[in-house]
């Protein structure tokens, strides 16, 4: 049974359509990631659920009941913002306690809950500080704490990690995952980063230009992208698209992930000749840029081709690992 349900949500600002006909169901305790390029409307969708925007059309049900007429504060949800939005005039303790005080929670309860949350997030020693005196990572933890402390059934994350550096981001990603397992809340998480999307989400909804392109588990999205957009958006380095003629499927577009292409110095059966361009060392393997019959391709290989720029080598494209799309519509065949 779905816990949160978006029904035919549409939103436009003036003539500009931000969201068109969004239908989406999320079950209780699920971790759903909304991912897509910037401007695709993912944040707007989140904010509509939070009550910070009103949809032009459509309805949102939580637990079977429409919440559109409710004030944000009455929707039983909390949100973590990209820029943290900590109250600069309050110290960390008061930042966490703010929502509880407004809800007339008793002082002892507040003490207990703030303490508990602070322990989970390991920010006990920061409680007396003002946000100004915190580092980026610490602020992020406090923002997380402020959302957690209210123990709402829904948690919303709006690109919470995009202001952090790479190391911190990895660590926080891990913590968010851990928190989800701890609290069992329903989480809706907006990001433009596909790594966050695939690592965090139980399910991923890929948005583009106000549409949902595909909703599925990370694995399914990776293996069976619904269309060329999803295929190229998810997966790093990006999937290669080759004309179907190359592999004897005219009229189709062939998608092949870089790690599935193998290389050799000598021609093999079914192998195609390619010109080497440049190569990047990634540690586990090499990312090779090359030209295949006038088309740029990327491929991953445990060793670099033994040739100089412009030199020849051979690539094999295994058909069983290729995905075929309609050349015109871009849909999966």
């Amino acid at each position: 049974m779905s816990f949160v349900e978006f029904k035919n949500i549409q939103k436009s600002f003036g003539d500009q359509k931000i969201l068109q006909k969004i239908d989406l169901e999320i079950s209780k305790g699920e971790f759903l990631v909304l991912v897509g390029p910037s401007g695709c409307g993912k944040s707007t969708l989140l904010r509509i659920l939070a009550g910070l925007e009103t949809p032009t059309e459509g309805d949102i049900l939580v637990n079977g009941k429409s919440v559109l007429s409710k004030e944000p504060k009455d929707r039983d949800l909390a949100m973590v913002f990209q820029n943290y939005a900590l109250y600069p005039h309050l110290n960390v303790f008061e930042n966490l306690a703010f929502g509880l005080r407004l809800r007339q929670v008793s002082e002892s309860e507040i003490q207990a809950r703030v303490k508990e949350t602070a322990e989970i997030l390991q920010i006990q020693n920061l409680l007396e500080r003002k946000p100004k005196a915190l580092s980026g990572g610490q602020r992020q933890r406090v923002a997380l704490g402020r959302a957690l402390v209210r123990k709402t059934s829904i948690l919303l994350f709006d690109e919470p990690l995009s202001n952090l550096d790479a190391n911190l981001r990895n660590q926080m990603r891990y913590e968010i995952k851990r928190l989800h397992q701890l609290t069992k809340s329903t989480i809706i998480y907006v990001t433009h980063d596909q790594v966050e999307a695939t690592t965090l989400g139980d399910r991923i909804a890929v948005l583009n230009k106000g549409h949902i392109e595909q909703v599925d588990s990370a694995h399914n999205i990776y293996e069976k992208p619904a269309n060329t957009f999803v295929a190229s958006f998810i997966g790093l380095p990006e999937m290669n698209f080759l004309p179907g003629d190359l592999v004897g499927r005219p009229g189709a577009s062939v998608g092949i992930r870089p790690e599935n292409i193998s290389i050799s110095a000598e021609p093999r059966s079914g192998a195609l000749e390619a010109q080497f361009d440049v190569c990047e060392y990634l540690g586990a393997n090499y990312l090779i840029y090359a030209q295949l019959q006038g088309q740029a391709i990327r491929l991953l290989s445990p060793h670099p081709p033994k040739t100089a720029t412009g030199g020849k080598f051979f690539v094999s494209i295994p058909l069983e690992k290729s995905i075929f799309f309609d050349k015109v519509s871009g849909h999966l065949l």
Partner: protein
Amino acid sequence: MRQLKKILSLLTLTLFSLFAVFPIYVVLSTSFRGDNAFQSTSLEFWTKTSSISNYFSLFTSTDFLTWMRNSLWVSAAVTLIGVGFAIGAGYSLSRFPIRGKKTGLLILMTTQMFPCTMLLLPFYIVLSHLQLINSFWGLLIIYSATSLPFCIWQLKGFFDTIPKELEEAARLDGCSHFQVLYKVILPVSLPALAITSLFNFMTAWTEYAIAAVVLQDPQLYTLSIGLKTFQSSLATQWGLYAAAAIIVSVPVVILFMSLSKFLVSGLTMGSVKG
């Protein structure tokens, strides 16, 4: 080279500081002299005839304390009302899709361009219709309203710089619109509020022309009109005047100085980021 530059700039600043305080020095030194000492060829601060008797008689033989009390009253009330109103309008204009917002803001700015002295006669007529002549109310209304446009612009500019997410977070945390304003926006806007209050206070504390028309009962006089009574067309009590001027200026100067840090950030915040 670097040292020379530093000395040069210190020198320049000292020179200009002297320029800035010199008139104050003159008033201060006059306040210790007799009535006619404004006309004197000495530049000395303390002369043989100097004394603090002007200050003494200011408090004992004039209504100075009454004026002071009235001015404090009026200024405090104007500050509260004016800033209160400006907060409401500034916040709405900064945050909500108010109808006719752009036009409204333009009109607000253009009100600054009308020579205020010409409004005296209409003011008087409005106030006498409202039976507010000779009462602090009339003064309060006019002062707060005339300083409103500037205050609204000022506060709107500052509110614009506060991230929207802060309010959204507060609303999710459980604030009503009013609580957002009261518990989050206002505490965060303290520098701008301080500056706006200061300007309101200053206007009310120093305004003369309107007060002279509205207040007719000497018991209601504010400092600026009171001071003016020392100064008659053919015989000014310069000593008393100077002493009173010093006492009137001290609070504003202190306020100004203590808020000068905010002044730097508060005045420009809006325009830098707005």
